[in-house]
């Protein structure tokens, strides 16, 4: 059978469309593109939970760290949400970020500084691109990455939430803003797909009109920018850039009909209302609450999965809860207490339940990728997904007190996927490796050969 080139476009009306991977493009063993013999698209994803791994002063067994290492270990309660994907993941424990002034070190200021070195491999005070940005550069072609935040609100009345809700950073240290609206994220990716409710011609008409409005806006913006002072120009130019990005996306549309694995997901509808569930009534002025983040996270995972399947992107990040998260955990711990609070005021068991819920979102995404055939295998064969937390549990970074959640000792991360020969299914004691080493190992598995910030070592056990 004649094979199509990866670069084949379909012309429909005045718009041309790229195609995701069709069987007809692959070689006979389904492992590479037939015409160019280049490999199938590799994907990198990062999922973050705003938790540490224990509760202040609780020295009881904490039900998160598996005891045995190797391939015959049992999942403790805190990781039991991985049960269905146990063979597809490896757990890496005993990770450590040193406090001080060395490669990838952190400081004693936990909530501002603990999570950052892991993301960029840089010590506090030095800026660097986070792993996803490096991967975007390496894997992503011209496509933008997806950056989602499931936690819908800061959930306190009078503090500014910034820094706590950023996961990704450019090389100059500027943060990437996450999308918090599942609906806006859905439309951003799939408004160009025809679903069951509109025919391709109808969709084309709507998209063409949308583009006409954006065209007019671009013209008006350009004129306005010329009238502004230089610093004001920058803001307006940012708006113009984003408008143009939307236009570009309209121009490169996916096919009108679904293919084997790429199809328009169901419309998530309006976003769940903010803060109206399980408000913590001890804080009436502080809107501590819950906005069905379980559903929000699932929708974002669905979008990441399908965006990968349709090759709309190769890199995605999902911040489930923010650093020092005020989201109420009642629905999954039974305690009317925030994610941050359970780690200080309840106990290890509650923290384990919180970790279990967070990890469950990651497991959901892993399972979807595993269950989606691609080439001769499945999507997970060509992907790597990492799960990381804000902190560990051990000596306090500030005052060295024992059993502290404000610790970057005993950190634990999870990696899923088989890209580049990774062999999941194990629990590995990392012997105090830096958590960036896990991310770097994942990055190297995609073919990247550089470092992550100041961290150059990897975890070869993940290949054994």
């Amino acid at each position, binding site marked *: 059978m004649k094979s199509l080139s990866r670069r084949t476009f379909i012309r429909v009306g005045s718009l041309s469309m790229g195609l995701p991977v069709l069987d007809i493009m692959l070689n006979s063993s389904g492992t590479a593109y037939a015409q160019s013999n280049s490999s199938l698209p590799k994907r990198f994803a990062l999922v973050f939970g705003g938790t540490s791994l224990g509760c202040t002063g609780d020295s009881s067994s904490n039900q998160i760290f598996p005891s045995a290492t190797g391939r015959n270990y049992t999942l403790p309660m805190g990781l039991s949400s991985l049960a269905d994907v146990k063979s597809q993941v490896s757990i890496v424990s005993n990770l450590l970020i040193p406090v001080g002034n060395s490669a990838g070190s952190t400081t004693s*200021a936990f909530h501002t500084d603990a999570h950052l070195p892991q993301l960029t491999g840089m010590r506090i005070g030095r800026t660097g691109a986070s792993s996803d940005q490096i991967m975007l550069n390496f894997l992503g072609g011209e496509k933008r990455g997806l950056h989602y935040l499931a936690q819908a609100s800061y959930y306190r009345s009078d503090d500014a939430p910034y820094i706590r809700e950023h996961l990704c950073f450019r090389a100059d240290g500027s943060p990437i803003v996450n999308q918090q609206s599942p609906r806006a994220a859905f439309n951003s990716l799939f408004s160009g797909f025809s679903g069951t409710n509109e025919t391709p011609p109808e969709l084309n008409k709507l998209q063409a009109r949308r583009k006409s*409005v954006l065209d007019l806006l671009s013209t008006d913006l350009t004129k306005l920018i010329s009238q502004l002072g230089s610093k004001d120009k920058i803001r307006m130019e940012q708006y113009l850039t984003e408008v143009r990005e939307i236009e570009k996306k309209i121009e490169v549309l996916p096919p009108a009909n679904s293919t084997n694995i790429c199809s328009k997901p169901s419309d998530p509808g309006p976003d769940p209302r903010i803060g*109206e569930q399980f408000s913590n009534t001890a804080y009436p002025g502080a809107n501590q609450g819950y906005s069905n983040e379980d559903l929000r996270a699932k929708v974002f995972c669905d979008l990441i999965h399908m965006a990968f399947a349709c090759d709309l992107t190769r890199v995605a990040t999902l911040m489930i809860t923010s650093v020092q998260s005020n989201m109420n955990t009642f629905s999954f711990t039974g305690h009317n207490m925030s994610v941050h609070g359970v780690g200080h005021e309840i106990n290890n068991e509650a923290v384990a339940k919180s970790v279990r819920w967070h990890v469950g979102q990651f497991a959901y995404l892993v399972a979807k990728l595993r269950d989606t055939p691609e080439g001769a295998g499945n999507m997970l064969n060509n992907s790597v997904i990492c799960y990381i937390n804000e902190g560990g549990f051990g000596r306090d970074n500030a005052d060295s007190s024992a059993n502290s959640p404000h610790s970057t000792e005993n950190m634990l991360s999870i990696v899923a996927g088989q890209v580049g020969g990774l062999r999941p299914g194990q629990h590995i004691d990392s012997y105090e490796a830096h958590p960036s080493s896990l991310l770097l190992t994942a990055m190297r598995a995609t073919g990247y050969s550089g470092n992550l910030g100041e961290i150059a070592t990897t975890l070869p056990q993940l290949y054994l």
Partner: protein
Amino acid sequence: MGNSKFTTHIETGLLVAFLLGSPGCAQKSGLSFQEESSQGESGPGGNNANEESESESNSTTPANVRPLSNEELNNAINDLLLDSSRPATLILPEESYSPFNNNVDLQIVSQPWVEAIENLAEDVAKKFSQDKARSERVLGCTPITEQCIVNFTPNLLKLAFRRPVEKEASTEILKLVQQVIKEDGTTSSGLYILIRYTLQHPEFLFRIEKNLNLNAFELATRLSFLLWGSIPDNDLLKSAENGELSDSDGIKKVALRMLNSEKAADRINRFHSMWLGFPNMGTSMLAQAMVSETNALLKRVIVTENKPWSEIFTSETTYLNAELAAHYGLSFVGNGSQWISYGNSPRRGIFSHGSFLSTVPKFGDTSPTQRGIHIRKRLLCQTVPPPPPDANVDNPPASETGSRCKEDRYLSHRKAGSSCFGCHQQLDPIGFGLENFDQLGRFRTAEADKPECVISGRGEVAGVGIFSGPRELGALLINENDLFRCVAQHYHSYAIGRIPQSVSASTATKLFKVFEEKSFKLKDFIIEYVASEHFRTKSLE
């Protein structure tokens, strides 16, 4: 990454964390940050932006352009289209408060925001074009014909962009509107396109001021966002056109007229709720009753009766329903909501309100330290440096004697000779003076779960005086000039969309003098203020 300008862990202001220098704690009038930020021009006589030289604008004019806040968008969309669904709140990212939600440094343009705006525009436009009754009412035509839309468009754009709009500005969009109407055979499609375009337009979405000396329309826009939280209405635009805003007396007349609107009372309430730290009280019945309580007091003192502003701290009566009265332990007879007297209770004014008392809780309870910080920073504009990085602020303080009682536990902050003493002796005693009032505003004689820990309620504002309870705290603080200077400074920062710490000491002093001249009546201050150079020019301090 690390210490970008976003790094701070206690303070809400971006710049404050870096200005730790002060050796003591809680400096009075710690507003000396002008070296950092006052690069902008102030005072009249600046050139029209069109005549500004490139080098001038490059070197001296910081960014001023910022998107409308979510509530401003909600209000503007309601004013334009009679859409009260608060669409920005439904889809845009939540705002941050520093303490206001119009901080130009935080309101950045991002991909998520722009994409969400497109969704918002689509939703609102679709609903509007499909709502026959509403769209006919707004356009003033029944039925809506193409000519009607053509006639409507210039006025829509004028209102949306807050300035007279040249005929040519409508030409391109009307071409598209008419094409769409022709293709679909229905005017609602054209209306949909028009609204979508307008709501995504930069001159609708952004606060743009091109002139250093604001022109009449820029001034009208500033006035309406400050006093109404929304775009100018047709009358205000007409006043701008007629030259009513060209001199100080004219501006005062217009401002007085605007302050008589219900929207103005709302804005004054919103200003106070953001300034005092309770911008989001939540939806429970109790929380809503607390919001009503505070709003009623502010409106009565400031707007209706135009009394000295200090009365919000000394008011002998409060506006409650039966549920809230029972919650506070106050007697209440009758139905509905009414003003009741505090009588002999230690409550007076806004320090007694659940709204204020619910701010800055910690560890599931009140925090005397946090309340002290809140009052010094927010109400007195004093500098409170953050704790040293090795201080563990996430664990409750523990007493060395093993006592479980809060008064004993918090003494560990004030060990004689320790490095903690200097700041904490300025902070904790303030909070302890309010300890009889829990984070829900209820009175208590002992700690909730520890009846043996009786609360003394004794407090002190170091350098000012001792007190016990909200009544005495109010009486103490209304004698401090810093309180009035601070609210004036905050009002100005709110008006110009900058953090309060960026207001220079000299400007704050000038504003204090204006407030003083007006016998500290806030409504009169506002009228004077909006006619002053501080408001009429694109000053940044």
